[in-house]
């Protein structure tokens, strides 16, 4: 294969994976903006989405139905997490928040292991596995599904934030919680909603990802770490940045694995994370003054 061809191939497969990182990063961002919390259980939402959908499909539920059901089910889990674990700690330190969401992630992983067993669950691609050709690059149909779904989610979330009262109220909370409260917005309800929304879209990401990578009880953490890298690269709190950051990371990972070494594939994103945190903690696309810091 010529250099240009492999470059194209690696870029294309990187974009699909990166879109998932981006959507998980968006999930982090929604919760962080509304509540100031980094939810360490974000990856488990992705994992649960994949497992629920795979089970439904194996019970002959059509994908078109399994997708929304899985997204909805995971959104419910997100609401429960907020109510039972996060909300009681509203006035506690960051350390308590970090640890409680870590606890939730371990707990969800344990429950998933109990329900689905320790092995990976496979799910058939939505529309076959006959590769499509994009110039010299081969594209799996599922990769197209991934990118399309992510696009729909991003546009949907954008419309929600810009054009609905609830979306605007959530943005108000992100800008200034006290002022939003004074303006009559129930910050508590917005926090709850942020968890539900974020869990729901992460669950959907898990569903479209499942046919590409298989899914097991432990597949959440690596995705969450990459999603977090995406959010940081994009500037924590910046939704569009998270998606762009995710795609950049996915391409970097794919190119790095192709041209440098696939052994260290999973280290690339983390190295980028450390570099960005050290050199420019407000993210590549973020403003210099970041209130998270």
């Amino acid at each position, binding site marked *: 294969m010529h250099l240009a061809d492999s470059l194209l191939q690696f870029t294309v497969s990187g974009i699909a994976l990166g879109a998932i990182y981006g959507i998980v990063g968006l999930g982090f961002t929604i919760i962080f903006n509304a509540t100031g919390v980094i939810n360490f259980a974000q990856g488990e939402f992705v994992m649960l989405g994949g497992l629920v959908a795979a089970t439904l499909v194996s019970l002959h539920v059509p994908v078109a139905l399994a997708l929304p059901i899985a997204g909805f089910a995971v959104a419910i889990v997100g609401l429960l997490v907020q109510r039972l674990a996060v909300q009681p700690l509203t006035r*506690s330190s*960051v350390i308590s928040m970090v640890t409680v969401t870590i606890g939730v992630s*371990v*707990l969800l992983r344990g429950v998933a292991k*109990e329900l689905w067993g320790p092995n990976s669950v496979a799910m058939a691609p939505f529309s076959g596995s006959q590769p499509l050709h994009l110039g010299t690059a081969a594209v799996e149909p599922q990769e197209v599904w991934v990118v399309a779904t992510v696009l729909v989610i991003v546009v949907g979330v954008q419309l929600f934030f810009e054009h609905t009262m609830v979306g605007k109220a959530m943005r108000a909370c992100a800008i200034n919680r006290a002022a939003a409260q004074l303006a009559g917005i129930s910050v508590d309800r917005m926090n709850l909603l942020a968890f539900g929304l974020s869990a729901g879209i992460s669950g959907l990401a898990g569903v479209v990802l499942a046919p590409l990578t298989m899914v097991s009880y432990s597949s959440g953490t690596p995705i969450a770490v990459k999603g977090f890298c995406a959010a940081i690269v994009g500037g924590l709190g910046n939704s569009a940045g998270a998606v762009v950051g995710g795609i950049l990371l996915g391409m970097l990972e794919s190119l790095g694995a192709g041209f440098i070494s696939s052994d260290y594939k999973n280290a690339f994103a983390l190295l980028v994370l450390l570099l960005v*945190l050290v050199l420019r903690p407000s993210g590549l696309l973020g403003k210099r003054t970041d209130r998270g810091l």
Partner: protein
Amino acid sequence: MTTPRARSVFLGSLPVLALVVGVVAFPLVFRNNYVQSVGATIGLYSLVALGLCLLIGYAGQVSLGHAAFYGLGAYSSAVLTTRLHWDPWLAMLVGAVLTGAVAWLVGRPTLRLHGHHLAMATLGFGIIMQIVFIEGDELTGGFGGITSIPPLRIGGLSITGDVRNFYAIWAVVVLCVMASRCLVDSRVGRALRAIHDSETAAAACGVDVSTYKVQVFVLSAVFASVAGSLYAHYITFVSPDPFSLAFSIQMLVIVIVGGSRNVWGALLGAALMTALAQQIEKTDAIKDLSDVAYGLVLVLFIVFMPAGLAGALSKGLARVRAQRADENA
């Protein structure tokens, strides 16, 4: 009249004495090898948790990468003794220095970050290190790891078996507990607590916040490294498995459950959680539920007992003392 400080040192030495007595008696009371090895493991975890406790409880910083420091200690010992045939003690020392240097390199830039960012940065570092342990084939032996690591020796006595390792590990734990208590009661300890409460206020009072944070981070990494070396010489085998994110989380659970704002919390947490884990492991009905139990314990403790066991105990003690003072008055 005794000064409050002298009083606190005197009263504080009673628990240390009790600890020493308990440590000496443990293998004599429990003659079962399995129980002795659990005791040694509790010692190793206590050591890592003790360092983490100084970092979390006193300086208010979270690390999710301590498995990397534990692993660095273990691998330093393993590589230096098996490939270069160094003396185990020297290998342990060099491992500690190396780990301290790495912690300094990682800590200096990342400790400028707060809360969530620091947690994620250390998590990323921890995962990178595990990948290095796995992929550093020629040096680390990859998944297969390194075997036949020589035991520690004192004079002509080689420290093999559960009882000798138990004593060696716990001797280090007792020393570190005493050192930590001195540190916590010192000017540095007060500075750290000030940082925990408010970095801005601490800085305004002239506390060199970033230097103190990096120093306590390095110290806690060195504790973990020494524990890792002790582990390597005890088990005589290392592989990448134990040095994963799961270990870092386990240590966090230990510190939170035991109580992060008290040196004894690390020991209490390690003993309780290790015993609990062993019990779950042995009970077939709930064996697979160990993750569920771990997560649940962590969430419940954070929500209902944020100061941990040690916090609850010292609160209880304070209440009893206050009552007694009332009766005397």
